[in-house]
């Protein structure tokens, strides 16, 4: 009976979460971006549901890549990593011990970040070096200079983001650890059930702000979208994905939006994603609120270069450290 209940809870939570996540990109674009920009915007089902379905039935084109199979597999690996991330947030999976801990979450998020680096370095689109143009024959000002694809630039940026860009979200994760004194999700939730949500403390508020900025950076959303800045690297690591592989990219992004919001609800509100619990509604509300706030912020921001990115990350990281200190006190 317990096993059946747990299986229903886990599978049900995964399925409902996935279905809700399909609407998030549409909500972000239709109800926020389009409304702010005074245009009609796409149908709500278009970015998250109809676009992936359309791409699934498109002809598969082999990309120009040194390792095309690996390159094509990366979006699917990303999606699996995000699903696993959600899986370990569900209370019925807490028996796995260390896998249902902050350390494991940090590890899975890192894997997700590293994917962008691989995608960028394996993509060789026609939009830069491979573009046939007469100046190839005529030479250039500096003919001995090695030529680089724009995706390589994007890969380099992904590496830098791993190094410093993801500081805010990881620091925010450890606010709840500092507050509860445990790395395990089960302990963090139990603490909040007794003492109330961490969000309603000074450390929690500061941590929530830091988490949200980290959420935007991890999702490469404006103004932190230097990884896929249109003025130079265009779509960055995703540039060459077509057909079902692009569908995976879309699905992963929507699902990651949901999972990160769920992670916030778990760490700062003490509500784990569980369809069998009425509090799951709060998780859904948080999952809806996060993309909406993010969309408002991104609609009013230009894309940041490092000149703006570094100080922002530094300031937010300092705020995160202060939140940890406040939590320890």
């Amino acid at each position, binding site marked *: 009976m317990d096993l059946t209940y747990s299986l229903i809870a886990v599978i049900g939570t995964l399925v409902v979460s996935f279905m809700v996540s399909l609407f998030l990109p549409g909500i972000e674009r239709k109800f926020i971006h389009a409304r702010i920009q005074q245009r009609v915007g796409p149908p709500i089902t278009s970015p998250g549901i109809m676009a992936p379905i359309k791409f699934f039935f498109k002809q598969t084109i082999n990309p120009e890549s040194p390792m095309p199979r690996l390159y094509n597999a990366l979006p699917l690996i990303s999606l699996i990593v995000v699903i696993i991330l959600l899986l370990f947030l569900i209370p019925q999976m807490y028996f796995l011990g260390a896998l249902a801990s902050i350390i494991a979450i940090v590890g899975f998020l890192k894997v997700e970040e590293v994917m962008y680096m691989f995608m960028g370095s394996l993509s060789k689109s026609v939009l830069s070096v491979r*573009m046939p143009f007469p100046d190839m024959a005529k030479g250039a000002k500096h003919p001995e200079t090695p030529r680089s694809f724009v995706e390589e630039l994007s890969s380099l940026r992904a590496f830098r983001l791993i190094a410093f860009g993801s500081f805010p979200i990881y620091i925010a994760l450890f606010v709840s650890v500092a507050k509860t004194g445990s790395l395990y999700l089960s302990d963090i939730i139990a603490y909040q059930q007794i003492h109330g949500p961490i969000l309603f403390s000074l450390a929690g508020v500061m941590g929530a702000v830091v988490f949200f900025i980290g959420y935007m950076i991890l999702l490469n959303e404006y103004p932190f979208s230097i990884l896929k800045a249109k003025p130079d690297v265009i779509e960055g690591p995703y540039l060459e994905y077509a057909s079902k592989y692009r569908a995976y990219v879309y699905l992963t992004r929507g699902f990651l939006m949901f999972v990160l919001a769920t992670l916030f609800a778990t760490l700062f509100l003490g509500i784990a994603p569980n369809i069998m619990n009425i509090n799951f509604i709060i998780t859904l509300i948080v999952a809806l609120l996060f993309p909406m706030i993010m969309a408002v912020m991104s609609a009013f921001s230009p894309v940041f270069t490092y000149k703006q990115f570094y100080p922002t990350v530094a300031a937010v990281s300092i705020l995160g450290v202060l939140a940890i200190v406040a939590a320890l006190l």
Partner: protein
Amino acid sequence: MDDNKQNRKVIEAEVPMGPVHPAALEPYRLRLFVEDEIVRDAEMTVGVNHRGVERIMEGLPVEKANSLTEKICGICSNSHIWNSCRTAEIALDIEVPERAIYIRIIMEELERLHSHMLYLAHGCEVLGHETFSMRLFYIRETVMDLLGMIGGNRVQYGSAVLGGVRPRCELDEMRLQKITEGMDLLEEKISAFADRFVSDPMVMSRITGVGLISQKDALRLACTGPTLRATGVANDLRTVMFEYDPFDFDVITQDDGDVKSQLLMRVFENFEAIKIIRQAVRDLPEGPITNRSWEMKDVPLTKSYIEVPRGTLYHSYALEDGRVRNCVIRTPSMANIGAMQYACIGHHITDAQLSIVQCDPCFTCTDRAIEIINI
């Protein structure tokens, strides 16, 4: 830039972009030589969109050739046909009625407004600020509606003809009233946008000190139009054009020569354009709008320069049996290419397109040349 060329240094990496690139509205090739994502040198190549308009104009009756010039550019179509007509009018000593001159000025300033709004919207889009971009396109619609009302079309108005303007561009009381209302609305909306724009710290951080062109370099690189004026040089051909003599307006200049100056330059020029249009509407003289009493004759090469939204536009041709000979057209973007390359250097690669866009490129109308192979 020149030192690098002479020394042919090996730079860390070359990042080629285009001629197909989403941030570039028009096709051009850009090779950026970067070190740690900072542009150390840049090389820009245009010429992938040449249509040989000058060659097509060769031998055409001057009236037809004038109509053809309007197709050169989708943004400054009126500027081309006006300058082409102006060239013939100078050559053939055609006196243009005063009312027609006023209508031409209204069309030109409306075109300046829509061109500058398009420039600002494109700049904001490259900046990554889609909301500002959309807002500007929304504001621009007022101008487009007015142009459509006068010319019967939003892009190719066909207003100027030899000796005046087309009858369909006649401005009656209703049209004048609509133009006045449009200017009031535009002034209000552009003011609101400008206030919002300059008070946005994130936008200001992105555009201040980026794409810097000093006054000395702007003169050395032979910049023209607002690109030159944004470096502090008060050079505006409208001050010496006889058509603009009745109008009171200021030549706007900015001092810094960066993207911020270039963007604000266009915002302030919009207010001047509104001022000129209001004066033209208020003082619009009565009388005919076309002078048909002129005679065709053979004339040697005649030149005409006018100030268009992007700078100085040059048209020249000779007339032989009523047909165009030796036509040469030079658009302002041609003069600004050097500045575009130069402005990229020393800045982050993400700012490279922004540094180019700040000079308001229009390469589709710049690509005049024809490459003749196997003569």
